[in-house]
């Protein structure tokens, strides 16, 4: 019988603990099983799709951190003024926008109407992908000196990365603002101002530095948001990344692939939180000592 042969092939006729043991054994050997959808090993699939999402996520988080922190500092400095109130609305607006909707609207405006930026995919159809080094097209092309390809890849990257950043900008504005407000009334800030230090230097060197640890904490959360957003945004931008892979494997109940994606996300989440802990020590030497 075909069903029995199938069950035997995948070890489904064995007791659950044995199945789980086999799964773990294969896992530590780097074998995540075979995707029932692409019929290739899940680890190879992940290797193919992860770089596309990584490129998107890194740029998106960098943009969100820069813009969010800037807005947060401005809101804190202009506390209870009109600017602050407007930034509160901007921050709440950022976390209220449906990602898939801004993706659609921005594609319509910047690609279809204005034609400032390319539409879907990682490269124009006529451009050949750069030789594989890291899987990040912009970086690979730059390494190989193919500047035209790098520029094309970057143009393709801008719109989805900005769309993904919107939610995190709202989040980071809020966190930065409250972190800055907590330190801005400290005596050492007043001392820095009293000795005639220019305000921008006071903010960057004294206030922002002290506020940084609480902002860095949110980066892990920001990453989780980017993963959620990637599932929706990659769908619209035809971005061949882990979000699309997760979507296709979830809707077809491709269990080895689902497990693979979840494991990958969990590992990245742990690594990011570990890096955040290390960063604490770098930013705030007191933590390193204790």
């Amino acid at each position, binding site marked *: 019988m075909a069903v029995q042969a199938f069950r035997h092939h995948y070890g489904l006729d064995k007791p659950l603990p044995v199945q789980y043991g086999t799964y773990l054994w294969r896992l530590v050997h780097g074998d995540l099983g075979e995707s029932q959808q692409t019929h290739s090993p899940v680890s190879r699939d992940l290797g193919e799709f992860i770089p596309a999402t990584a490129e998107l996520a890194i740029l998106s988080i960098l943009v969100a951190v820069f813009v969010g922190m800037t807005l947060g500092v401005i809101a*804190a400095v202009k*506390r*209870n003024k009109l600017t602050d109130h407007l930034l*509160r*609305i901007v921050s*709440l*607006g950022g*976390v*209220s*926008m*449906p*990602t*898939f*909707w*801004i993706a*659609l*609207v921005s*594609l*319509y405006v910047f690609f*279809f109407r204005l034609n400032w930026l390319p539409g879907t995919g990682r490269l124009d159809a006529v451009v050949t992908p750069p030789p594989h080094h890291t899987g990040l097209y912009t970086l690979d092309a730059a390494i190989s000196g193919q500047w035209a390809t790098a520029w094309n890849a970057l143009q393709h990257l801008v719109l989805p990365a900005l769309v993904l950043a919107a939610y995190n900008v709202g989040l980071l504005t*809020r*966190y930065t*603002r*409250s972190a800055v*407000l*907590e330190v801005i009334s400290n005596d050492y800030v007043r001392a820095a101002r009293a000795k005639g230090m220019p305000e921008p230097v006071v903010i960057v060197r004294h206030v922002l530095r002290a506020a940084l640890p*609480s902002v860095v904490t949110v980066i892990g959360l920001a990453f*989780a948001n980017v*993963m*959620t957003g990637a*599932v*929706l945004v990659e*769908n*619209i931008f035809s971005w061949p990344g882990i979000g699309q892979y*997760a*979507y296709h494997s*979830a*809707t*077809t*109940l491709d269990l080895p692939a*689902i497990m693979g*994606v*979840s494991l990958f*996300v*969990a590992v990245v989440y742990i690594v990011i939180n570990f890096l955040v802990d290390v960063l604490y020590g770098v930013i705030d030497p007191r933590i390193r000592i204790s």
Partner: protein
Amino acid sequence: MSVPAVPIKVRSWQRRGPLASAAWRHPLAIAGLVIAGAWIFIAIFAPLLAPHNPLAQSATTFVPPSWGHFFGTDELGRDVFSRVLYGARLSIPLALLLVTLALLIGGTVGAIAGYFGGIVDGFVMRSADLVFAFPAIILAMVVTAALGPTVRNAVLALVIVSWPSYARVVRGLVLSVGEAEYVQSARLLGKSARRTLIRDILPNVFGPVLVLATLDLGNAVLLLSGLSFLGLGAQPPQPEWGAGVAEGTQYFQYWWIGTFPGLAIFTVVLAFNFLGDSLRDALDPQSSWSQGGDAE
């Protein structure tokens, strides 16, 4: 002893009565109330307000927004405006249902875990961690795909994904309130666990959980419409906002098909977030925007 009369400067807006002054001091709360109220009104009276039947097809397809069709018509000649109005009847009650269920389940479980501690606590919090370990949208996608893509299953999937955050918050609050002397004395007096939880602990938990629930309403609308956008929630003929945006991605050049349903999601979520944020100001000064404390 009498208090000496201090001349109080009355501002012009204060003379206009309590309502005007509240509006002046909490513009976000009022804006949130007005927008959310308008959408609830629309949800209730959609059949009276909608100029067309949201499911009625016609030969006039892809009509741009005009006086006959405020938001234009879609690929089947259906009136987008009427579909957006009817969409409120799905998204808003479902979001309320979702948050209520998650709050009841998570709150009860968290309260029990926090109150009794020990093995119960360990079991409950480890199951919560298990759910947290998965990316919410992937877990929700798997659950809906396994159970079949219907609105009911999408809500169910999102309840499974969202109860742990309530369990965590309530457990933490119960733990800290449980240490208070008046709770300890109630227990020493031999009051039952249920009575202590409901009479002495619940009122202290209420405020922070209300803030969480209001902010979560917005998230619920976003996640539900996100699942429908992916084709895992409401199915085609139903006028659902997320599904409407998905339709818009297929007929890209007709911008009105996707833009207006998305705008509906945005305004509803924004209203709930305005309300939640204002509630946080009022009930939880520690983390409010106006006090600028620790945002957690």
